[in-house]
């Protein structure tokens, strides 16, 4: 074999001669960059269509809406990384918003307790998912689908179809103030999201726990043999997903003032789409949360552009589907031998 000096083997195995090998990014990183580029292009296109779309306030509004999708997508990314999926997002989110509203009963004093209760509820829901999947071997699709149904029934039943005495309450004024407030000119919920992005990326990339999650997604059996706590990691990640869904519910409640039935429904498909647009591989083991976050921004920017075009609902739905398909064909493809 002749030695080839300039060939640089990337982890993905695509060997290629490159004079700028130093600046080379891996395929996974490239997908994150694509998602960020897509968001920027969408803002530019929006700005061309409607002057002011790319203005500071408008970008801020898009980012704020993207924040809800992004936080749900954090949990979704975690479970997709280990080869799972969380279909219980809609009603975990909805139950979270209603539980927060009903338990806080418009009072700021009861807010800490209500917060703990709601986040705890989300975590317990996720915990049950994780236990069913990791210990009892129920397929993730079935377990989380059933959990979504159970939560829907419990939420509707226990709140009497949102007619319970405290169901007419408003979000505590403090929560509303936080949701609408700004810190150093940037909305408070964006700060929260930035913090989540930093922490999630750090945990996934630089801790044993996070690397274990990638290992499980690539090969659960091999990682078990290599000493990864597969069961524990799986349960914790599902619990986190539940907690993130309920957190998004709390924030939506703070943002909108009141919870309603069905507010969680759009977030299932959007969270999966955001993760995939951001380069998270749906079969697990690859991807970064920062990509999913960029995916959430692209998705919301896309919807905003379509709305700026005054496109009717059906047109938005079709265009949305077509663009996601194009993105998938662009970089969601599997290698032909896989």
């Amino acid at each position: 074999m002749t030695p080839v000096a300039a060939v640089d083997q990337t982890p993905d195995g695509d060997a290629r001669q490159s004079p700028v090998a130093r600046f080379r990014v891996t395929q996974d990183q490239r997908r994150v960059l694509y998602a960020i580029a897509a968001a920027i292009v969408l803002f530019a296109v929006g700005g061309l269509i409607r002057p002011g779309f790319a203005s500071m306030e408008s970008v801020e509004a898009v980012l704020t809406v993207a924040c809800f999708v992004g936080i749900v997508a954090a949990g979704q990314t975690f479970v997709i990384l280990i080869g799972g999926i969380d279909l219980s997002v809609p009603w975990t989110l909805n139950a979270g918003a209603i539980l927060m509203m009903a338990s806080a009963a418009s009072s700021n004093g009861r807010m800490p307790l209500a917060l703990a209760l709601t986040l705890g509820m989300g975590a317990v829901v996720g915990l049950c998912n994780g236990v069913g999947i990791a210990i009892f071997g129920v397929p993730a699709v079935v377990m989380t689908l059933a959990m979504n149904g159970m939560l829907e029934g419990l939420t509707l039943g226990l709140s009497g179809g949102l007619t319970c005495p405290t169901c007419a309450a408003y979000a505590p004024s403090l929560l509303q103030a936080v949701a609408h407030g700004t810190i150093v000119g940037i909305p408070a919920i964006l700060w929260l999201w930035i913090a989540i992005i930093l922490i999630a990326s750090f945990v996934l990339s630089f801790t044993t726990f996070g690397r274990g999650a990638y290992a499980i997604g690539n090969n659960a059996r091999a990682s078990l043999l290599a000493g990864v706590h597969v069961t524990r990691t799986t349960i914790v990640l599902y619990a986190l997903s539940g907690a993130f869904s309920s957190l998004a519910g709390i924030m939506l409640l703070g943002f909108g003032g009141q919870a309603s039935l069905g507010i969680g429904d759009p977030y299932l498909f959007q969270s999966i789409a955001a993760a995939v647009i951001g380069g998270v591989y749906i079969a697990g083991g690859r991807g970064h949360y920062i990509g999913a976050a960029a995916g959430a921004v692209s998705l919301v920017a896309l919807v905003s552009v379509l709305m700026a075009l005054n496109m009717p609902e059906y047109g938005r739905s079709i265009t949305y589907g077509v663009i996601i398909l194009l993105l998938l064909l662009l970089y969601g493809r599997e290698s032909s031998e896989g």
Partner: protein
Amino acid sequence: MSDAAVAMRRSRWSHGLAQNVGFALALVLLVSSIVVYCAIYFIAQRRLPGGFEVTTTVNNTMPLVFAGVGQAIVVITRGIDLSIGGVIDLTNAIAALYLGDSLPSMVVCSLCVLLVGAACGLFNGLLIAYGRVQPILVTLATLAIFQGLAIRVLPSPGGQVPPEFTAMFANMNAPVSLIYILLLIGFWFCFRRTSLGVGLYAIGNDEQAAQAHAVNVIRTRIAAYVLGGVFAAIAGLFMAASATAGDATTGNGYTLRSIVAVVLGGVNLFGGRGSPIGAVVGAFVSAMIVNILFFAQIDPLYQSFFEGLFLVVAVLATGGIGRFMRARA
């Protein structure tokens, strides 16, 4: 008969049972849910359910039966079709808008509706087989497209279905629709022996091995999604017949409900095991659960709680008993 022959026959029986344990359990589930339903009905009404109850249950379950069969065919190839709800929306809307009163018009229009379903499935299949994108993602995106098209066709609930069409597919007086289930079973028993039918199971079990045994993986996969689309279109026709009008959003729930029917029917979500007939049984099981909850006077608000709980318990039980049977066999 010699002891050896008896032993062999018994082992073949238990082997067959172990191989089809999902389907056998689905049947057990169906029988026990019917028994429970009759008991609860008797307690509430002081008589056994009669022809009217059977007819309404059958008519209301037909769309789910066909949606479940479509989903099962795709799931057997280790895929999943989330766009089924969208195809039902679209075909239901088209049927309600264009079905005419005369027989030729009904036939032509129904065939066109089936073609639309096939086209939707073909679109999915081409993207999945040639585009090499994961089925769950492709069908998630096409779901949005088909739903959008459905709303474009029928912006608000309406349209009209001729009474003759309703009499044929959702007869109020007798459970005529059971004929279609018999036809379906007949179709499947012929189809699963064709090379295409065998290919579905082959690529669901091991795609590379199937390829090595000269199964055309790409064509088989596309065919699975086309069949899924056609069956979803049939579900849309049945829904139009029983509702006597169209609504471009009622199909949405069928994506998840078809998966529930498939799982209750003992079809393995990881492909290669189970049959669409199981999904038919699963569809009736989920219909019986709704009936039981209704006559047990459980607050309808709690309905999805019990459905979800039942799904988990059923899957756990199936898994546990299946492992036990296979360990014995």
